């Protein structure tokens, strides 16, 4: 589909940014990045920069929209106009609307929604800079924000994409690779349950490639998972410190 002459893997098997095929970009997660939100997180993954905020559980307006046996989860994924090469118009794109849905459906399985009937849990995601893989990085950040908000969860959700170029599977495509590569398969997993909660693909993949991609993703996701937990730990240590020092 995407015919082109861009070389994505060089003779030494290295990628445009010098990574090996199964190498994830460096990342950084901050829990509690914001003050107003009930929970929040900031993630940098390569050049991606994303803020996630969680509000809730809170009251639903108007009330007839409340679900009697569970919390409503709402999700809004949004890209800042300056986050991409060509300025994005501030209106909602169809892509943003679809991603809001699949991100919500990647996160909802991890939330004990039945503990907060008739309330809403709002997940707001703002992409400040995008460089391939924003939906998966958003899921990783949003799940930290949910935990930071104190919302009871079965597990965190972490996510990464596996792509393809020159018949090679590539972990964690960056923007250039995404644009000129032959396919992209974003995957989210709840590690404790080994449950795939986001799974999409475009491009052509053989069944064995899908299997292989899931393995590659899982390894990276475990690393992200550790990063998520450390970020939450840092936040609580910091709070404890503040509490102790204020005594």
């Amino acid at each position: 589909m995407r015919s082109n002459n861009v070389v994505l893997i060089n003779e030494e098997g290295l990628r445009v940014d010098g990574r090996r095929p199964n190498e994830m970009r460096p990342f950084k997660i901050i829990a509690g990045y914001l003050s107003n939100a009930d929970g929040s997180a900031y993630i940098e993954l390569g050049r991606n920069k994303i803020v996630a905020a969680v509000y809730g559980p809170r009251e639903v307006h108007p009330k007839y929209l409340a679900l009697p046996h569970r919390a409503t989860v709402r999700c809004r994924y949004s890209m800042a106009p300056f986050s991409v090469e060509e300025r994005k118009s501030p209106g909602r794109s169809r892509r943003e609307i679809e991603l809001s849905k699949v991100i919500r459906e990647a996160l909802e399985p991890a939330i004990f929604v039945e503990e907060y009937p008739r309330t809403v849990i709002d997940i707001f995601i703002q992409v400040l800079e995008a460089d391939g893989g924003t939906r998966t990085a958003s899921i990783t950040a949003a799940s930290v924000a949910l935990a930071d908000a104190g919302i009871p969860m079965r597990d965190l959700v972490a996510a990464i994409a596996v792509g393809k170029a020159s018949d090679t599977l590539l972990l964690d495509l960056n923007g250039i690779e995404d644009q000129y590569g032959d396919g992209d398969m974003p995957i989210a997993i709840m590690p404790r349950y080994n449950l795939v909660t986001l799974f999409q693909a475009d491009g052509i993949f053989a069944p064995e490639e899908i299997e292989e991609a899931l393995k590659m993703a899982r390894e990276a996701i475990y690393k992200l998972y550790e990063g998520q937990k450390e970020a939450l730990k840092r936040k609580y240590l910091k709070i404890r410190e503040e509490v102790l020092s204020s005594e």
Partner: protein
Amino acid sequence: MSSTKPFGDILSTIKRESIVTLLRKGERIDGRGLHEYRKIEIETNVISKAEGSALVKIGDTKVIAGVKTEIGKPFPDTPDMGVQIVNAELIPIASPFFEPGPPGEDDIELSRVIDRGLRSSEAIKLNELAPIPGEKVWIIYIDIYPLDHYGNLVDASGLAAVSALLTTKIKNWKVEDGDVVLLDEEKPLPIGEVPVFVTVGKIGDTLIVDPSYEEELILDAKITLAVTSDDKISGIQKSGLGGFTPEVVKNAVSLAINVADQVRKKLPT
């Protein structure tokens, strides 16, 4: 903003449990096998004003798709290719739960899943549809309208889109003085590899294909796979509020590839 849908309440507890109990025994409420589609019927060229069209029935689910073509501007990043635009609208005719109004997330997700499945497999040879690269190319609109929603709209929409494309005729053309002149003679739209969309539902440990509407209400999650004729996957979309283990994903992929062949046989030739 995407929001949890309050669909879970619709099915009575008794109905819900009877479907689940049957599925655990490997049976379905309408008597089908777990990996069996409902009856598929495809009627093509149903809309004479469309350049291609198809009315697809999968059981009581009914979807119509029409293809319209025109000369227009290419996307800036693919100047030497035609443009494919997929639009699905969940019109309120088709279900008591579809509301009138501008397209919501379900309409948009459906459009985009079909669009990506077609695009990845190069269903339309868009590179043959750029008479004047960078300036004037063919725009191929595929409009999908469900008329009766009894479950599995994705597969039915995919079938309708593909069947409409396979029967689409466009005007032949020549380039003259830097302009595209359409000729009277028609030719088939240049078609590459067309995918078959297979949706696999999961409930507990059971996988089923072609979920009916009632089954959709109780599924843990669904996964749609666009399957090519050489048993590759040209598109994936998991949806719903649950998940799959990687092992089950693998099984779902195999299952989809297996049943895709039967579905493919229904395509117009």
